[in-house]
């Protein structure tokens, strides 16, 4: 307990030192305010956003896109991962294409998705899906193939049919891997949709940042960044809880 408090105090003092150094450097003119803004200004901007409530629609859109991207990407990833792991032939057939697609930097897809799906949320969801899908796909694939052979043999000797084997052994094993990559895939989903918004949107935190950038409003850019990391952290905390509950048998 004492160690924990000391750690927290240490972390807090690093943050305070960093922010106050920044504040002082800009206030005394050592750093240009135009390029670096100021922590106090940034905090003020976030305060205004919260007071007027103007931030909520943007934040809500970003979270909605990320949630949709996660749900769709994870669903497709689990299905494909399962199918390809259970059928080695299909797996071998699909292998090079999956590698090629996964090697593609997702950012370059954003403009294409903008053309295909328009400026609304679906182009961002699509970009998020391409990120989440592969994480979940590889984890599911691994999870199904990695399942302990004696656990499978044991279930079969106890009389499990193919479907029972899938339901009681293979799916839980795959889900273990998916759950343990949950915060990575959700974090990546957030990043991907923000990149999408940044490149072309009419709403969202990414859009907010790119708007501020367009008018050289560094305070707005930093404030947007702060809001973004705070919400990713909050979501991450929730996901960690969920993960611990889902994997409670792992002690």
């Amino acid at each position, binding site marked *: 307990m004492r160690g924990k408090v000391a750690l927290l105090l240490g972390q807090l003092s690093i943050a305070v030192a960093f922010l106050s150094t920044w504040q002082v450097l800009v206030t005394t003119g050592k750093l240009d305010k135009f390029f670096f803004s100021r922590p106090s200004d940034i905090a003020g901007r976030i305060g205004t956003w919260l007071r007027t409530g103007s931030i909520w629609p943007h934040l809500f859109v970003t979270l909605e896109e990320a949630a949709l991207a996660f749900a769709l990407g994870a669903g497709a990833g689990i299905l494909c991962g399962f199918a390809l792991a259970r059928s080695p032939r299909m797996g071998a057939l699909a292998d090079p294409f999956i590698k090629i697609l996964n090697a593609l930097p997702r950012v370059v897809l954003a403009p294409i998705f903008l053309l295909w799906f328009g400026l609304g949320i679906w182009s961002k969801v699509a970009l998020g899906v391409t990120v989440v899908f592969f994480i979940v796909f590889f984890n599911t694939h691994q999870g199904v193939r990695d399942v*302990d052979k*004696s656990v499978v043999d*044991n279930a*079969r*000797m106890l009389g499990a049919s193919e479907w029972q084997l899938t339901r*009681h052994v293979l799916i839980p094993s795959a889900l273990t891997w998916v759950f343990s990559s949950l915060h990575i895939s959700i974090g990546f989903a957030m990043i991907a949709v923000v990149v999408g918004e940044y490149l072309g949107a009419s709403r969202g935190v990414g859009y907010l940042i790119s708007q501020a950038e367009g008018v050289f409003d560094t305070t707005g850019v930093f404030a947007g960044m702060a809001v973004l990391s705070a919400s990713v952290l909050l979501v991450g905390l929730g996901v960690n809880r969920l993960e611990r509950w889902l994997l409670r*048998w792992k002690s």
Partner: protein
Amino acid sequence: MPPAISFEKISRSFGGYTAVDGIDLEIGAGKFVSVVGPSGCGKSTLLNLAAGLIVPSKGAVSVFGSVLSGLNRRAAYMFQQDALLPWKTVLENVGLGLRFRGTFSEERARQWVERVGLAAFAGKFPSQLSGGMRKRVAMAQCWIVDPDILLMDEPFSALDIHTRMRMEGELLDLWTGSPKTVLFVTHDLEEALSLSDEVVVLSAGPASRIIARHVIDLPRPRDLMDIRTEPRFGELYREIWAQLKQEVLTSYAR
């Protein structure tokens, strides 16, 4: 009554490696038979053949007189490694065989959990149990489906010596008076002697074969805590160890 398991001129190869060769062995119904041999002599292969998890390259396995094809539905298998489902509780694991057969009853699962002394742990997950407790769960998992044959692959080898003796005692208690046949694989001659009606010695691999069969005429019921100090135990031990030692030395030399 036909033998519970009979191996008829069995050979089994994996790729170019022959694990067992020319195995002829009958396991009488209701008997407790142990197979001993040096590491890597194909003991587990015999069990997997009897379970139907692998098929012989030559020869055939019969179960109660009919040739085995597919999995052996009259047998339960207790594995050397942990084979419990880690995401299911003790109670769910114990009842697994019933669930797969569509005859799940929580009451029966609970009875078995109690019978192996884990009533207080019914809701725990395997990772929260000690090694000995996990073995108890595995044992209940096998017995609840009321198999005619129990295949056991060094089930207690990972346990410390005292837990091990207790588990052996519990196994004997369960088996005594039941009509079940046990095929027990171990590399520990003392364990084989103290539990079995018969001990089968396998030669060093590859291409292991049976080199001797010994009837263990120690009276039952047996007190596992003291049986090792009985004179007849010592005689049998020396007799069989003389053969086993040769095979162990051969397997070292390879």
